[in-house]
């Protein structure tokens, strides 16, 4: 019995020590390591993003994290310079637009796939034709008519109708060039894993990590870091701790509430870039009284973007009054109305709702959207509109929003701006757009969008999109709120993570120095 009591005391003591230790532990970081004199790149970089790498099936995924990995493993024909928004050479050394529907490409010579096979024009034809066979990628190449090879290192692409976004579209990593030989020699599963990029697949433990190793033969030069590990940590607090302990070189998306602490921490670097997505509110024009422009305008007057930026994103976002993303080359500054409660009430009275009314607001399960909706609810309350808010699970949200039934307003994100101006605008507000949750149908708008895609001259084209952006503000069926920032936290020895291309992260040139 005495022994039992002793054992009990020991257990109690241990538990108490753990609890006390835990309770008195604060989140201060470890003391910063002094920076060494001789900087040598570390052999391996470990990092974590919010989402997991999902598949090696290149043509078949919308996952942006997955596409970001493809960007390091493969090359597309042309790529985009994020800083200038210009199309730059990649596997194609140069190209000319022979007519609005004809492009000629000269390909880079001496490029090898990871399996050792040579890159030739046949691979481009193979890749694009393969993409056309897959439902998930064929719409990207919907305008493609034919591919004519001109020897191993030149080819001509013919389009069905003019599409000035064609070069932008083929920078999408899902259109990465695959090896025809590898598919034939290694079969589909292995064949699709052979890219021409600076890194090649090493090991994938689904749900855990993906290891990439440097491609010594890379045509653009061997990357500085020998190995990359993309580790899946879904919980943001855990991710942040992992970078604090030094187990991670950098992470994406720490908890927003920790941003101030991260800034104050001398052993960490915080880096922010505008994200690819715009937070939006849709007015469902199929649902009265949202079909009334005065009601929509009144709501616009009642809302305030800065409150949302401060309240939801703790300042870590940029107000955006344009349905076009500010990082898109075809974005223009446009006028919009500022918050004016009196004006809002006036318009509501004019529309016959002097006493306000009740509306249903839905959102997907994103915590951001849910927080936005709470603020919108409060702001609309000011003008007498009672908002019934229904957060929906993501797949449910898509179904409900597409049906156009049972809601007046919808809060969600849209991020289709990375591959030219057309896709972003078209899917949002074109009458048959896949993301037209306003269920808006306007022949004038459709015509403007259809015209803008064909304009060759860049400044003329910019003007055409500005007109669309202003017209969208006029009809007010989509209320753009803001662009959230991507946040990266890294150790101080990690070189700045390059700016992403829209939602596509660039992991090609990551470097971390050890002392």
């Amino acid at each position, binding site marked *: 019995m005495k022994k039992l009591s002793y054992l009990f005391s020991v257990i*109690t003591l241990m538990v108490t020590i753990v609890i006390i230790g835990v309770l008195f532990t604060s989140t201060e970081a470890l003391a910063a390591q002094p920076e060494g004199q001789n900087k040598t790149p570390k052999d391996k970089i470990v990092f974590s993003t919010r989402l997991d790498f999902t598949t090696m099936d290149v043509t078949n995924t919308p996952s942006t994290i997955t596409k970001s990995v493809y960007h390091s493993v493969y090359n597309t024909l042309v790529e985009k310079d994020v800083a200038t928004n210009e199309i730059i050479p990649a596997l194609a050394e140069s190209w000319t637009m022979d007519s609005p529907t004809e492009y000629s490409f000269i390909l880079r010579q001496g490029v090898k796939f990871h399996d050792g096979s040579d890159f030739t024009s046949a691979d481009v034809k193979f890749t694009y034709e393969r993409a056309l066979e897959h439902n*998930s990628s064929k719409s990207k190449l919907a305008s493609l008519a034919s591919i004519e090879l001109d020897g191993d290192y030149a080819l001509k692409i013919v389009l069905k109708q003019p599409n000035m976004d064609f070069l932008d579209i083929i920078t999408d990593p899902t259109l990465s060039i695959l090896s025809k030989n590898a598919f034939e020699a290694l079969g589909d599963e292995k064949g699709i894993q052979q890219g021409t990029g600076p890194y090649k697949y090493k090991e994938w433990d689904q749900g855990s990590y993906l290891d990439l190793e440097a491609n010594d033969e890379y045509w653009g030069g061997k990357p500085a870091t020998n190995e990359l590990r993309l580790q899946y940590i879904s919980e943001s607090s855990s991710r942040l701790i992992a970078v604090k302990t030094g187990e991670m070189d950098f992470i994406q998306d720490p908890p927003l509430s920790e941003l101030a602490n991260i800034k104050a921490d001398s052993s960490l670097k915080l880096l922010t870039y505008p994200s690819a997505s715009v937070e939006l509110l849709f007015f469902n024009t199929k649902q009265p009284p949202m079909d009334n422009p005065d009601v929509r305008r009144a709501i616009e007057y009642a809302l305030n973007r800065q409150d949302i930026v401060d309240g939801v994103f703790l300042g870590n976002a940029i107000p955006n009054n344009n349905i076009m993303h500010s990082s898109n080359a075809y974005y223009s500054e446009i006028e919009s109305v500022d918050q004016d409660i009196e004006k809002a009430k006036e318009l509501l009275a004019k529309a016959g709702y002097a006493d306000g009314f009740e509306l249903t607001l839905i959102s997907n399960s994103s915590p951001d959207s849910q927080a936005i909706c709470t603020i919108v609810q409060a702001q609309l309350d000011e003008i007498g509109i009672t908002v019934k808010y229904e957060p929906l699970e993501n*797949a449910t949200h898509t179904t409900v929003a597409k049906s156009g039934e049972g809601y007046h307003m919808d809060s969600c994100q849209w991020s289709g701006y990375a591959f030219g101006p057309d896709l972003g605008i078209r899917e949002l507000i074109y009458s048959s757009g896949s993301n037209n949750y306003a269920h808006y149908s306007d022949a004038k708008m459709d015509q403007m969008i259809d015209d803008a895609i064909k304009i060759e001259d860049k400044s003329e084209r910019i003007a055409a999109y500005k007109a669309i952006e202003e017209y969208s503000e006029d009809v007010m069926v989509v209320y753009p709120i803001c662009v959230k920032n991507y946040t990266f936290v890294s150790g101080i020895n990690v070189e700045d993570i390059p700016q992403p291309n829209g939602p596509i992260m660039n992991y090609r040139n990551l470097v971390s120095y050890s002392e």
Partner: protein
Amino acid sequence: MYRYIIKRVLLLIPILIAVSFIVFFIVDLAPGDSIDAVFGNELSTEDKETMREEMGYNDSLLVRYARYIGNVFKGDMGMSVLFKKPALELYLNRVPATLKLAFWGIFIALIIAIPLGVISAIHQNTFIDTLSTILGLLGMSMPSFWFGLLMIILFSLKLGWLPSFGNEGRGSIIMPALTVGVGQAALLMRTTRSSMLEVIRQDYIRTARAKGVKEGVVIYKHALRNALIPIITAAGTQLGIALGGTVVVESVFAWPGVGKLTIDAFNARDTTLVVGCLILTTALSSVLMMFIDIIYAFVDPRIKARYSR
């Protein structure tokens, strides 16, 4: 005993068919499908419709179910829409980590729960009993998310003893298993306590004492062995739950278990993967329960006698 096992295995087949149908039905009831959930805005409405047609999504529930179950009997559990990999492969890839976490978790839970429960029982209604009860309640009410993070802060960040994430390297199991174990310990402790309280009042405990058996032996040999059946039952239930995945713990520690896989699959309306995960988890749990039943027989000869009938 063998006949008993064979009977149990055969019984599993209708159970799995029923489970698969129910899950199929429920996933079908939830709005949205995998095409919308996975491809979202990426594809036009027409493209998605073509995909649905090709993948047979437009057939009736029964047709789709019959096709699925037919393939399962042929050994094909289908492809995940989300990961573009066979559901079986995805699941099996996660099973070792889940088993590891579940077993270590229950091991830790038992190590905490049995001594505390026994001590509570023999010191019933004393300070020690109250203290154990409070500790138990603390363990039960402490959100595992919070407890896990605090441990990471202490053991990974402050002390640098343990890795903060993943299922690799020395000691990576310790914190996830503790988080699972502490949460489960409370219930097991209460079960141990009440079971022991009943047993130590039995006449045969008095018989043992009257023989001059040491008190420790009386408690841990004579009493605990008899108190084990409810404890094993409770531990088996907890273990079964853990086999289905401990989603929160898996998230906090980036533990690659089946729980996250199942949730990710459901969020993507990846019916094939969801049904696959649940069928396999049910099968795994049933096998586990069978083992538990076999353990009963070793603990209690009366049960063993019943099996051989």
